[in-house]
């Protein structure tokens, strides 16, 4: 009888432990991110530089690189930050100071900071997925697989400024790709093929594949392949405000610049923007973030569900890679971040 009671009490503890496990924020995060048919390939959560959660699916392991798509834009901005720290360029100067060809196309009023802010003012049609649209007139399609493949930098320069020189915010894979054209122009010839590794990837000890156009200019808008753990290191670099193992990669001013809103991004009250633009990065729409109690975030966001989420105040990094092309239901990024934040707060003692 006594044994039975003890067993009964023990089983009660076991059940309550199970219930507690099922309702922990970390478990809830996993259930949301890996809900049936979500096509999440990997999810990693770090706090204070420590791995708290890691899971791979759909045939991926920690050793597979994953296509980063537009997360490449944010990584390219980090490369520009490193080149600025090395005094190779000034983002406030005209692009004509670095690319004489820009003069021929009357684009001397545009600066590197405008490209970093998706605000070059150059004509751009970012549409590409709608099978009913005129896919031949998609600027992205032509940049990556058509007229632009020979020389992406010159391809960008051939685009007009329809707003008569006025800088307007227009999310553009072309603007981000052009950054690597500027980078190639400002580094010594011997570094043209190596600068992303020399100034960013090698110091972080990460192995990255970076596709190029036919001239050898890196595809800064979309062509990076990276392992999720390596992508998380780029996130950590922002938490460490540009310092890595005692070596400065970019300045603290660069981190603050990245984390600022382009003055051209004036969709602040629009419900159609769940994310707001930073400089080649994103943040959660503050109204949504406030409602979900998510602190200030810096997010790299790529096609078909690639995300690098940095929450500096919690020293938190979240990586989600996936393949949303076959699913009707979007991966719920906000709910995943919300649960991740709760899990990190719990770990850090309810800060």
């Amino acid at each position, binding site marked *: 009888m006594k044994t039975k009671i003890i067993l009964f009490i023990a089983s009660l503890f076991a059940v309550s432990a199970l219930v507690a496990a099922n309702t922990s924020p970390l478990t809830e995060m996993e259930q949301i991110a890996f809900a049936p048919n979500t096509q999440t390939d990997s999810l990693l959560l770090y706090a204070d530089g420590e791995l708290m959660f890691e899971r791979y699916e759909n045939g991926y392991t920690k050793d*597979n690189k994953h296509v980063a798509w537009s997360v490449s834009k944010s990584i390219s901005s980090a490369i520009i930050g490193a080149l600025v720290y090395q005094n190779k360029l000034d983002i406030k100067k005209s692009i004509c100071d670095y690319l004489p060809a820009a003069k021929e196309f009357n684009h001397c009023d545009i600066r590197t900071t405008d490209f970093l802010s998706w605000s070059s003012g150059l004509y751009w049609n970012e549409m590409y997925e709608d099978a009913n649209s005129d896919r031949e007139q998609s*600027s992205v399609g032509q940049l*990556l697989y058509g007229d632009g493949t020979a020389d992406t930098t010159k391809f960008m320069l*051939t685009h007009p400024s329809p707003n008569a020189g006025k800088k307007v915010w227009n999310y553009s894979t072309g603007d981000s790709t052009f950054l690597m054209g500027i980078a190639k122009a400002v580094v010594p010839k011997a570094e043209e093929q190596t600068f992303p590794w020399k100034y960013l990837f090698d110091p972080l000890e990460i192995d990255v594949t970076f596709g190029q156009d*036919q001239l050898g200019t890196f595809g800064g808008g979309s062509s990076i392949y990276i392992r999720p753990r390596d992508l998380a290191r780029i996130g950590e670099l922002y938490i460490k405000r540009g310092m890595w193992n005692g070596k400065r990669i970019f300045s603290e001013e660069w981190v603050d610049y990245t984390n600022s809103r382009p003055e051209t991004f004036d969709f602040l009250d629009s419900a159609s923007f769940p994310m707001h633009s930073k400089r080649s990065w994103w943040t959660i729409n503050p109204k949504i973030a406030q409602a979900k109690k998510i602190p200030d975030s810096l997010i790299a966001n790529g096609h078909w569900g690639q995300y690098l989420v940095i929450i500096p105040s919690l020293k938190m990094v979240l990586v989600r890679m996936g393949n949303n092309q076959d699913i009707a239901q979007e991966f719920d990024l906000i709910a995943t971040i919300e649960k991740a934040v709760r899990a990190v707060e719990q770990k850090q003692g309810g800060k």
Partner: protein
Amino acid sequence: MKFILIILSSVSALALAEIPHYKTPLVILATRYRAIHTCNCLYVMKMNQDYCVNYSKIDPPIFTVVIDAANKSVSSGVSGQPIKPVVAKFANDRTGCRIQND
């Protein structure tokens, strides 16, 4: 009246001039997409053939894929059409696959 027409036509000419007219036809865009993404999926991401052929699919499903594993290259054409296939070939770990020029 003539004056208004001139103004109108110059305005519309200006508007047309603002939008570039791209030249590469859809067949080339689609076969290059199919070839390069299958190639990078196989030799950079190191996923299997079924996964990669599905990953790089395009609507409508008329763009074919032929994998040459020995040469780490992928060619793509259009089923039922005698066009010259586009070939993407793995170059190296740093830059991945590249479209081969003629």
